[in-house]
């Protein structure tokens, strides 16, 4: 499959939205202006956990310039019904009270009221006149504390569901997951070497540069129009309609250009509030979050506690695995524990394994997806233990990974058997890389490697292509373009039709114009929406064959379409554009369409190599060299694949070294700004080298695998392994920030 020569696929055309983005013409949500538009301001809880005793909005409502005020009582009662978010699902009652608190606030930043006024300053000043009486409750922000019997309860009606069995008493643990294969206990008895450790990771945020923003316009006829920064216009439409209890068909969501999402712009936060403010005021309303709001009141990814154990035979074969995982859910149930459990041993063929996972509510914002949600945490644990195992067995850390790597036919602990996958090829690429073969020299320096996995999903996508009279194409699809997907989708259509990428005008439609399409998430867009575009192209070719048969006076079966997209029949060969023009002139116009819903995961594996240097006096880590290797199946646009690899890696480096929600004694966040929430700047990372492996995915016409998420999985583990090799200090807690690494090195020196 990889040996196939393509004309367009694998090339690097300029992206269709490039000029608009670099010249500032692209329209983002906060650029949207409607006549008579008001500005909204959301009043948020200063407490981590409190009962809302009363809210008095009278003074705010009387403020000149104020047009509407909303509180929880303006939101309709919604049932405990699950709504599909595309990649995961949500309980609507929780979703609604996360948008606007009802009886209780569950985290600092939880919305309690909102004001719409003629400008944002009036709205803010008026919101501060709203009198909220709180009864402050005990709060909890550490996952193990929240699991204790005497922990402050966030939800009185929440009981643990343990694989279907419901507990009697309420707790903060909505879900206990349990997976096993083989007989792990027995296998550990038979193991020659066992490694076991406990690990902790801090809550981290996606850190997208564009804060959440929305414009809502509630019309007199009951139609609601929304412009928003979302990864999925259709899920935003569904969530908004359900929370407001209005018909789905009454809501139009227009996805604006988006300044990053990484999983954090799937859940709605502001949309229902803006809609109710608009309904009450009769005017369009725009709300934008501040950066502090984004940190405190959107959806970060879970902090975690993990205990992981692996047993192996003397020859290096891993035979037994055990994991006990507790992940923050945040204020409401439904965190990332599921994928955490599925990913903990996903890279290794371990015959006997048992995994327990707990989803834990605590007084932090409700967690959300973040690039391979739940996988980075467990990789931090497992990949360090694999290194320790190798050291105990006197093996090379690459060799032990190669020996135990999953391949076609390996079964994961949660059940699925892998189809053809590319982890072995990625590890081979490590072995052959210039980086791996260049010795690292100098004091306080170390090299570390780690592997990583993310499922990559299919879900639903649609595409429609209208043929212009000159044979160029307008492609309408519904995937919010975050990483250049307009182009990578258009390239697949261009390839099948024998056109160039710039013969296609891709457009991301709104929910009234595009066919149903799930979120831009799960590394699915180039795979699934690309597949829809491919199928739409095939649909077009079928129609053209039928029409050409009439024109050429032959049977449609006699007409064939070549690799170059040319039609051959009745003794002639005609290119796509030529035929399209001919048909148009003959009075035929063409629209191709397709809907797809592939159910198979695309199984993206990767491996990374990190070289670092530690300042022994300060504990500061400098990343010297970094190589990210990944199986892309087939890279449609290699520059965008490399961009995903580099971006994910840099986010992983930030998570590893400095990023964390730092909580004060009152369980409120101390560092809700980009100053003190330390993401890497361009001066903090070297150029990330990339190696794209292409093993070909049999479930896609061009062999595509999702690539967006896996690159964030290995970095904390690879860096921890590198730090160990540099300092002989094993870091089991994220972030490995200078104060923590210095302290760990000190403790190690003292104990020696």
């Amino acid at each position, binding site marked *: 499959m990889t040996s196939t020569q393509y004309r367009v696929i694998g090339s690097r055309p300029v992206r269709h939205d490039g000029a608009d983005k670099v010249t500032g013409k692209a329209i983002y949500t906060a650029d949207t202006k409607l006549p008579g538009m008001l500005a909204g301001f959301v009043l948020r809880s200063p407490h981590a956990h409190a009962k809302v005793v009363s809210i008095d909005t009278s003074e705010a409502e009387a403020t000149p310039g104020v047009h509407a005020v909303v509180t929880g009582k303006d939101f309709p009662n919604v049932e405990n019904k699950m709504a599909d978010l595309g990649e995961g699902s949500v309980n609507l009652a929780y979703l609604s009270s996360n948008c606007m608190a009802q009886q209780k606030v569950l985290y600092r930043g939880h919305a309690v009221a909102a004001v719409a006024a003629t400008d944002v300053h009036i709205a803010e000043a008026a919101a501060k006149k709203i009198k909220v009486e709180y009864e402050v409750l005990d709060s909890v922000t550490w996952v193990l504390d929240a699991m204790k019997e005497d922990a402050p309860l966030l939800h009185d009606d929440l009981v643990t569901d343990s694989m279907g069995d419901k507990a009697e008493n309420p707790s903060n643990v909505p879900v206990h997951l349990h997976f096993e294969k083989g007989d792990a206990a027995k296998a550990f008895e038979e193991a020659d070497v066992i490694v076991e450790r406990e690990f902790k990771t801090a809550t981290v945020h996606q850190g997208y540069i564009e804060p959440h923003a929305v414009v809502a316009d509630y019309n007199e006829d009951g139609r609601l129009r929304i412009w928003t920064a979302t990864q999925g216009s259709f899920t935003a439409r569904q969530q908004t309609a359900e929370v407001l209890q209005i018909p789905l068909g009454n809501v139009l969501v227009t996805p604006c250009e988006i300044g990053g999402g990484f999983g954090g712009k799937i859940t709605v936060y502001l949309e229902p509030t803006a809609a109710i403010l608009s309904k009450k005021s009769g005017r369009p309303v725009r709300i934008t979050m501040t950066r502090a709001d984004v940190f405190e009141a959107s959806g970060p990814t879970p902090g975690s506690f993990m205990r992981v154990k692996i047993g192996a035979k003397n020859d290096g074969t891993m035979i037994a695995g055990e994991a006990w995982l507790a992940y923050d859910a945040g204020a409401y149930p439904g965190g990332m524990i599921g994928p955490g459990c599925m990913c903990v041993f996903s890279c290794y063929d371990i015959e006997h394994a048992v995994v327990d996972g707990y989803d834990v509510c605590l007084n932090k914002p409700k967690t959300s997806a973040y690039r391979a949600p739940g996988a980075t945490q467990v990789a931090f644990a497992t990949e360090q233990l694999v290194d320790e195992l190798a050291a105990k067995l006197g093996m090379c850390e690459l060799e032990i990974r190669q020996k135990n790597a999953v391949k076609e036919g390996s079964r994961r602990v949660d059940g699925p058997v892998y189809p053809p996958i590319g982890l072995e090829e990625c590890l081979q690429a490590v072995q052959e890389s210039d980086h791996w073969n260049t010795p690292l020299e100098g004091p306080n320096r170390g090299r570390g490697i780690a592997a990583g996995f993310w499922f990559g999903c299919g879900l639903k996508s649609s595409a429609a292509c209208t043929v212009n009279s000159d044979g160029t194409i307008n492609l309408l699809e519904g995937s919010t373009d975050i990483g250049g997907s307009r182009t990578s989708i258009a390239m697949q259509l261009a390839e099948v039709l024998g056109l160039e990428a710039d013969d296609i005008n891709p457009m991301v439609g709104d929910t009234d114009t595009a066919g149903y399409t799930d979120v831009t998430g799960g590394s699915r867009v180039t795979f699934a929406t690309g597949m829809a575009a491919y199928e739409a192209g095939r649909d077009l070719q079928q129609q053209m064959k039928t029409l050409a048969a009439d024109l050429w006076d032959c049977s449609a079966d006699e007409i064939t379409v070549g690799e170059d997209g040319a039609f051959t029949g009745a003794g002639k060969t005609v290119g796509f554009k030529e035929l399209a023009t001919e048909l148009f002139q003959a009075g035929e116009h063409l629209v191709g369409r397709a809907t797809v819903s592939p159910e198979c995961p695309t199984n993206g594996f990767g491996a990374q190599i990190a070289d670092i240097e530690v300042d022994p*006096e*300060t504990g*500061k880590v400098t990343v010297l060299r970094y190589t990210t290797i990944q199986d892309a199946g087939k890279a449609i646009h290699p520059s965008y694949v490399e961009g995903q690899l580099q971006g994910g890696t840099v986010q992983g480096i930030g998570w590893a*070294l*400095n990023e964390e929600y*730092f909580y004060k004694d009152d369980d409120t966040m*101390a*560092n809700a700004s*980009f*100053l*003190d929430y*330390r993401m*890497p*700047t361009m*001066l*903090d990372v070297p150029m990330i080298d990339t190696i794209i492996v292409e093993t070909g995915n049999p479930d896609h016409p061009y062999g595509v695998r999702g690539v967006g998420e896996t690159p964030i999985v290995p970095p904390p583990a690879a860096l921890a392994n590198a730090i160990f090799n540099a300092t002989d200090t094993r870091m089991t807690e994220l972030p490995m*920030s*200078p*104060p923590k690494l*210095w*302290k760990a090195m000190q403790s190690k020196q003292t104990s020696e």
Partner: protein
Amino acid sequence: MAPQSVSEVVAVLSEHGDRAKLLAGGTDIIVQLREGLREADVVVDIKKIAEVTSFKYCDENGLSLGAAVACYNLYEHPQLSKLYGALADSTHIIGGWQIQSRASVGGNLCNASPAADSIPALIALNATAVIAGPSGERSVAVEEFCTGPGRNVLENGELLVSLQIPAQGANCGSAYERFIPRNEMDIAVVGVGSWVKLADDGTIAEAKIGLGAVAATPLVAEAASASLIGKEPTEETFAAAGELAKQIATPISDMRGTDEYRTHLVGVLVKRTLTTAVERAQSS
């Protein structure tokens, strides 16, 4: 408003008291006003006043630095950046270059952040603050200028006019270094400024060390500075000074570092800045 003279500013400040705020580069005050951290009825731009916006150096009196002179003027100046190494170091890392094109050293001092980058450097260089007010002019040593986080000695009606920094003879050298977890866009976890003057025999004749972010105000490490006098500039000497400096540090624990870690960093940075300062003195 933008008065043309120091006396006009004094008059405005006297009239409005706390409700008037001065604007030099504006990189702190505009943010503080916007975020509601400070409030004002009147914002007074002082950049129309020559003596506040100019600077001059002479071998006798040293550097007279107008309070509103922007950071880049120092590190881009071929002579001053050499003479006042510590000040060049610190002005080069206050914000990015856009900020450095606006932000002034005087403003950095008046803002009185315990973690301000320029203050330990000014302390090490023995700078004096020249203050104008309703009752005329007075001078205050920089280490006495800050009285708490965000607070300083300026009384009602007073403004900082300039900083006077002594001339740097041969055999003088200084350096400022801060520790931050990243390499940019950060606030000092600890900052240290060191200044030395070497005797003809190469031993240390005079020294002064300023510490930032380890107390409510920037500090002078007096015992540490005194311990260097008459000593050979060796790693052991610097390490011993670092230990003495650690003793006066009373840092807080917050998201930028624990008190234990900050205290440890004082020792590391005293050693590192002394090393650089001596190297600069030896090559001057």
